[in-house]
């Protein structure tokens, strides 16, 4: 399982508190599993047709920005071992 921290608005949409846990060892697998477990999240992190990450959404883990890495690459070992969470972050923007 992978521990996932969602931003405030997506936690509300998914009706969850705190971290969620889903199967998945890559960014794409985690997003797939999140969208299956919480259909309301479909389209909020990536385009539902093209799969392209939404431009104001970023992915982090272990102090690394995984947003631009290949989404089929394995997540860091600490994430796979559940020592660290995978973070979905809404970019800071606006006033």
């Amino acid at each position, binding site marked *: 399982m992978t521990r996932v921290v969602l931003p405030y608005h997506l936690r509300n*949409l998914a009706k969850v508190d705190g971290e969620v846990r889903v199967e998945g060892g890559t960014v794409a697998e985690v997003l797939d599993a999140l969208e299956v477990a919480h259909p*309301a999240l479909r389209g909020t992190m990536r385009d539902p*047709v093209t799969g392209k990450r939404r431009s104001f*959404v970023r992915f982090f883990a272990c102090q690394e920005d995984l947003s631009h890495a290949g989404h089929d690459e394995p997540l860091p070992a600490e994430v796979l071992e559940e020592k660290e969470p995978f973070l979905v972050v*809404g970019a800071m*923007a606006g006033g």
Partner: protein
Amino acid sequence: MAGVRVLVGTRKGAFVLTSDEGRRNWDVAGPHFGGWELYHLKGSPVDPDRIWASQSTGWFGQLVQRSEDGGRTWSPVGKDFSYASVPGTHQWYDGTPHPWEFARVWHFEPSLTDRDTVYAGVEDAALFKTTDGGESWHEVAGLREHGSGPHWQPGAGGMCLHTLLLHPTDEQRIFAAISAAGAFRTDDGGATWLPINKGLQSEGIPDPEAEVGHCVHNLTMHPDRPDTLFMQKHWDVMRSDDAGASWYDVGEGLPSDFGFPIEVHGHEPDTVYVVPILSDSEHYPPDGKLRVYRSRTGGGDWEPLTKGLPQEHCYVNVLRDAMSVDRLDESGVYFGTTGGQVYCSPDGGDTWDAIVRDLPAVLSVEVQTLA
């Protein structure tokens, strides 16, 4: 007991305001979807407790929420607004071709006869329809594919289909307005569309015969007289008596004929309301006075309505979907401002009072008249 429910969309959530027919004492519920932009909420005329809400942000995109209990609780429904064909390009602000991209839903128009059918006007401009209560949406592609699309261009708020009027008895006839393309009409349920912009004259479009390109801000009609349309254009308040085939100017006498919303009285087809705004550069009322103007003659002979509205130091705007009327015996008029006030006049505009004063900037106001 008769009453009203006012659905308010704001920059930071939705609010539901309810009152009995006196419209003096209000219950305020919300925010729903706090922190999200709610461009529009509208209830089904067939089943008023069934309401659709357009929820979006630049971060997480578009969602559609549906309530079955008058706005107390909500559930997400379908949100896939994929164009039916390769959408091609429209004009960008500088006149260069720009790819058509879905951004958000600006307006819902529920069917007058079927609780599961709703039309949605979206940005970049297109018309969508659901026949399963919002679970799935399909583009009514005849509008975008009219052929003039490559010449459409965005207004300041984006290239949006923001207004939909359904004919009260002919389900095949729909009116749509797009900024900045103009007004369109279908007489065959959406298969084909006719630009209805003859008589419109717009600064920046030197050709008085231009078929498209006009920045129509809002349209309205009274259901008892569906061939008569009123239009608030970027500049100019216009009227048509032939279902949009031709238009003439009825804005003379207003302090400014720039503005966004336009509405018709609940029972009087010749009583029209606008909110003049100083100019397209300033976007606030003339002289710092918030005045609704009413014509009882179908345009022209405009009178300012000021009792209860701020008459000094007021620099808010009233957006295109932020005005509505109820259909109680004495028709009420409502509007919301970018300063977060929602005003109600229970007597057709003679007197006004603020229902709330400090909401986030108001994007839309829709009123439901409850039996």
